């Protein structure tokens, strides 16, 4: 046992996750303190404990279990995603909750993990046998399926998470940077279009320069830029058809937060006020006026960072960010330590998902990202989110334990 702890147990990753989970429990307690929602505090503890058990279970599963079970896991979660689309019950205008264990669960959280494992498995096993375009095509298929299914729910935040999975894993696998940029270009242009002409022009020019820098061919760069612009314009045409009104509004409000200080922008404003009023050391635990007076909506889920920001100030926020940063670097370290490509790719995928979640969630609390409604790993209340976070930690722990095996 001692030998296991010394050689095989990645206590750093584990303790960082425990630290973040603890911050989460404290924050949920504060966010729901003295209110009818305080039962979420108890439930959060239960979910964190369950997550811990899941992580340990994954840690102690066999070295081949994850890689072998990836496809099965993938198919299972895809079926669940289809199931929620057909029979899901509505929670705050999303249909991603299924009646699971009587409490409801979000299969899209699990689908992310399944997609990471599946893409990693595919690339590590079959990636070398096929040509580049086949690999890209199949990868798009693997990631695209859950993406479309979550987009249909509709859940904008989780949909974009798949892009992080896709690009990070393929990049780590060795895809040429120019192809990555080429694939990102249309998305960047779509985004730039909503931000005004200046941003669009700058984006197009910098993409063109990037193409030129990466390929060294002038004609190719210009052509690629035009293709990207054309695709972006084409997508804008479908903007209204593809995105739900509330999603369109969220994007609009992200870009112009002053448009609607009482509607969706109200949330963002309240969150910013709460965090900003925290100052250097915060107002003290359970003393955040904004959170305690419940002016911040969804404060135990999407806007939980306001509790940290208001009650623990810049200092507490920085500690939380450091814990996240350390965890991300730990994930990347594992990606380098492990001997199998599957584990390495999956580690990068897991790190990027956690990073993306943390960045977008905190970002939307501080007006750095649109309010797309994705949870802060380990900290936001939410059963399936906490479980999948811990499951990913478990996977990292498992990889670390088996890092020397081929």
């Amino acid at each position, binding site marked *: 046992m001692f030998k296991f702890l010394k050689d095989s147990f990645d206590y750093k990753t584990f303790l960082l996750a425990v630290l973040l989970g603890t911050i989460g429990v404290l924050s949920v307690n504060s966010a729901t303190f*003295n*209110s*009818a*929602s305080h039962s979420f505090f108890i439930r959060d503890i239960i979910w964190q404990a369950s997550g811990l058990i899941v992580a340990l279970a994954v840690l102690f599963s066999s070295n081949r279990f994850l890689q072998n079970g990836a496809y099965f896991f993938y198919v299972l979660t895809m079926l669940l995603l289809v199931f929620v689309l057909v029979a899901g019950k509505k929670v705050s205008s999303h249909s991603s909750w299924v009646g699971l264990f009587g409490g409801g669960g979000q299969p899209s959280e699990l689908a992310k993990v399944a997609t990471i494992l599946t893409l990693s498995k595919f690339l590590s096993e079959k*990636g*070398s046998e096929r*040509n*580049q375009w086949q690999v890209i095509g199949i990868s798009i298929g693997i990631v695209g399926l859950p993406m479309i299914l979550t987009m249909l729910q509709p859940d904008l935040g989780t949909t974009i998470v798949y892009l992080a999975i896709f690009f*990070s894993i393929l*990049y*780590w*696998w*060795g*895809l*040429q940077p120019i192809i990555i940029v080429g694939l990102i270009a249309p998305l960047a242009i779509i985004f730039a279009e909503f931000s005004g002409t200046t941003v669009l022009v700058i984006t197009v020019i910098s993409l063109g320069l990037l193409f030129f820098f990466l390929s060294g061919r002038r004609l190719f760069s210009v052509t690629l830029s035009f293709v990207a612009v054309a695709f972006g314009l084409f997508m804008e045409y479908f903007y209204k058809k593809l995105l739900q009104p509330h999603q369109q509004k969220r994007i609009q409000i992200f870009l112009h937060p002053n448009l609607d200080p*009482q509607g969706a922008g*109200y949330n963002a404003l*309240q969150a*910013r*006020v*709460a*965090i*900003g*009023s*925290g*100052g*250097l050391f915060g107002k003290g635990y359970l003393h955040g*006026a*904004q959170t*305690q*007076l*419940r*002016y911040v909506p969804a404060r135990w889920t999407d806007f939980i960072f306001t509790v940290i*920001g*208001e009650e623990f*100030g*810049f200092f507490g*926020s*920085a500690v939380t*960010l450091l814990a*996240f*940063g350390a965890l*991300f*670097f730990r994930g*990347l370290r594992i*990606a*380098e330590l492990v001997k199998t*490509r599957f584990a*390495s790719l999956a580690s*990068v995928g897991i*790190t*990027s998902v956690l*990073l993306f979640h*943390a*960045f977008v969630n*905190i*970002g939307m609390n*501080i*007006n*750095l990202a649109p309010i797309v409604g994705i949870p802060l790993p380990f900290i936001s209340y939410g059963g399936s989110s906490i479980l999948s976070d811990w499951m990913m930690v478990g996977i990292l722990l498992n990889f670390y334990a088996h890092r020397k095996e081929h």
Partner: protein
Amino acid sequence: MFDTDFGSRIRSLMIKCAVVAALFAIVVKLGDLQLMNEVVYGKKSEEITTRILVQQPLRGEIFDRNGSVLVENDPAYEVSVIPYEFKNTQIPSLAALLQMDSIDISRRIQIGENISPYFPVRLKRDIPFATLSSIEEHLKDFVGVYFDIEPKRVYIGKARAAHVLGFTKEISEPQLATLGDYYKPGDIVGYTGLEASYETILRGQKGLRYLAVNARGQTMGSYDNGKIDVQAQDGSDLHLSLDEGLQVLAESLMVGKKGAVVALDPNNGEVLAMVSAPDFDPSVFSGYTSKQQWEELNNGDNHALFNRATMSVLPPGSTFKMVLASAALQEGTIKDSWTVHCPGSFYFGTRLFRDDAVHGTVNVYEAIEKSCDVYFYNLMLKVGFDAWTKYGEMFGFGTKTGIDLREESAGILPSRDYYDQIFGKNRWTSGYLISLAIGQGEVSVTPLQLAAYTMTLANFGDYFQPHIVRYICDQRTGKTFYTQYSERNIPISKEVFDELRQGMELVVNGPAGTGSVAQIPGVIVAGKTGTAQNPHGKPHSWFIAFAPFDNPKIALCVLVENAGWGGSVAAPIAKQLLQYYLNETGALPQPQQNRVVAAAVLH
């Protein structure tokens, strides 16, 4: 195929850079929010962590000179909405419950929201007691809708004094824009009369209670233990110089007439009574005023809201003759022995000016007594325009008296400049002055100005700024504040005043006096009638008077529009008022006969 690049150093570095960049961006933004702008957000946080409960102060009460209450407050029930808690989908059912117009509701909420979405917006006030319980019951089904009690004006005095007291009304949108930050939509504000002129004193200061609120909008008690609460301060009371009994009598005498009564205390300029007829019921405005009611009062034929006592400008007729007489006597143009023969008419060039009667040879006393126009036509030509204007100014004509009401007109006191202005230089002749001599033509005055003029005739030239409020009583400290009013002395000698007053005494008590109706047994009344020609119908009937002659306690002016002769319409009203007030103040001797009878019974 791309094995060479799998997890390469450069890629590892790039990913690490991305991680660091993402975290760095967050730290920078957090620093901006929490370190650079903490103060800004801290303030904002204070502003919106609470529900603001506005505590309406009690509006100051208003008392008459004897301490009897004219206006006080009653609780009224109101429904208000906090815009940011309220969902617009509730409007139709709320409109049905409150029996209001949906558009009206959404407009009110919109206006309030623009000012502050956290401040309650009043939707309906003064909800009748009968429907109270059913509304209160149903309000629980609505989100962001609250039920409150606010004070409402009640007029419990026997006197209406509608134009003096004025009325309160919900603040209008233009007023909101001009009156500043204190007011919020739905606030009550003094619109006219003393309610308007003493608005800041009467209204007090609103209190603010900050309540902690939970996610469901339920209050969780006071915020920060009430440390930042602002206590409401009730408004101060006004103690008026108005005599309720006199006011009641004056109002009853003016019922069915158009006109005004202003009675002043010649010893200090206090307004004892002020009536403008027709009047209105101020309580109509204290609760919910329907558009129809408002239109009717504001734009109706009666112009009931118009304060004739201070705003109506009419030619003063013969009441103005003492101005000319004082100029002539004080300037030494004539002596009181100077006479004029009155054949009943007067030719100026080829123009004929009629008099009411053939008065024969009259001196200044008889001219005033009989109101002989021919005498004053002649006198005017002797005295000249400038002196007439100068003495008119000295008596306060052509300028506002400065009474503590906003509704006041200055009237018109013609002068050379004025005529040059309206007719053109050298486009008018001395003939234009003839009418002015008898208070006709362009000269126009308010009843209040005439009353103040009477006051100065009564007290030998002391012009006290007329005023209604005697003192203000602070509700909290119980301290009283006497308001300072201006006073000036008219530079006319006592001898001249004696002569003018003798003429006025004869008006009432002389053998040929035009105001003999106003005689009161046991007291010497002095007065002057005025009959102002009115091109649109019957003349306006004026009467000014003061009494007792030697020690005046009251000076008044009565105007009845389109009524006929001053001596026959206005003078009887003045007589009753004088009689009442003198009796009340003990200046009227008790009839001797009663005492004799009583003595006889005792024997």
